[in-house]
């Protein structure tokens, strides 16, 4: 089986706009819900705090891999690394890649996350625990928050 996630989405915005939303750390933080400490730099760690209500204590961390302007942005991280008492840095990360492509209506964005086969089984379980701990409700809150105001 392929231990990889791939998603494609078409955005009605120019590639330059999408690139900024992905790679400007403040803009990234807006939609990703994380308060980052500083700009993304290839080869450097990016750190911040999750801004989901109830998860503000959780440190968000990634190592920026590639930043090829308006084409590819990638980082390595530990998905669901939400236990503050665990040092995840010694565990194999997954790789997240955003690829941008101009289309007549704007931008085609392809997201891939790979390397899940290396995530230890007991870590995978965290994805469910977190969901059980109210993550679903937080998702709903966000949906309400981002929905167009009437």
């Amino acid at each position, binding site marked *: 089986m392929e231990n990889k996630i791939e998603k494609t989405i078409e955005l009605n915005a120019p590639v330059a706009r999408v690139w900024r939303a992905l790679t400007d750390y403040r803009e990234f933080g807006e939609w990703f819900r994380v308060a980052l400490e500083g700009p993304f730099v290839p080869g450097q760690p990016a750190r911040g705090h999750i801004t989901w209500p109830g998860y503000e204590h959780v440190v968000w961390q990634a190592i920026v891999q590639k930043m090829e302007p308006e084409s590819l942005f990638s980082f390595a991280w530990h998905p669901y690394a939400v236990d503050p008492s665990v040092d995840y840095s010694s565990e194999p990360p997954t790789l997240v890649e955003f690829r941008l492509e101009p289309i007549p209506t704007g931008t085609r964005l392809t997201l891939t996350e790979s390397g899940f086969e290396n995530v230890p089984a007991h870590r995978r379980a965290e994805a469910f*625990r977190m969901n*059980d701990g109210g993550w679903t409700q937080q998702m709903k809150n966000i949906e309400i928050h981002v929905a167009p105001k009437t």
Partner: protein
Amino acid sequence: MSRQKHKPSAHRRPASALLFAALGDKTRLALVARLCSGQPASIAQLTAGSRITRQAVTKHLRVLQHAGIVRGVHAGREHRFALDPNSIEEMQLYLDRVSRQWDQALARLKVFVEE
């Protein structure tokens, strides 16, 4: 992986169908979440503190067991249930969780760049 026999493609389809059926239920997802600590739990433990009957828990566990997500373990005379951490199905469940997270994040990105 302990479930090598499920690797050939001919066996994949029924496994996926079973998984799909196993997941289409809130109670079963809650049971999976409860078993995520890694500690095997008895039916009595899984029933305690919930409004679900013992019979219903037994039924749901059987579905999860059939889908290869949960396995039975014997602890003395007691029968307990645990997640099968090496199952392909468990990995698929996990990917499904992460995948849904991305759906949400990309939906927010879409709103963010199009507004």
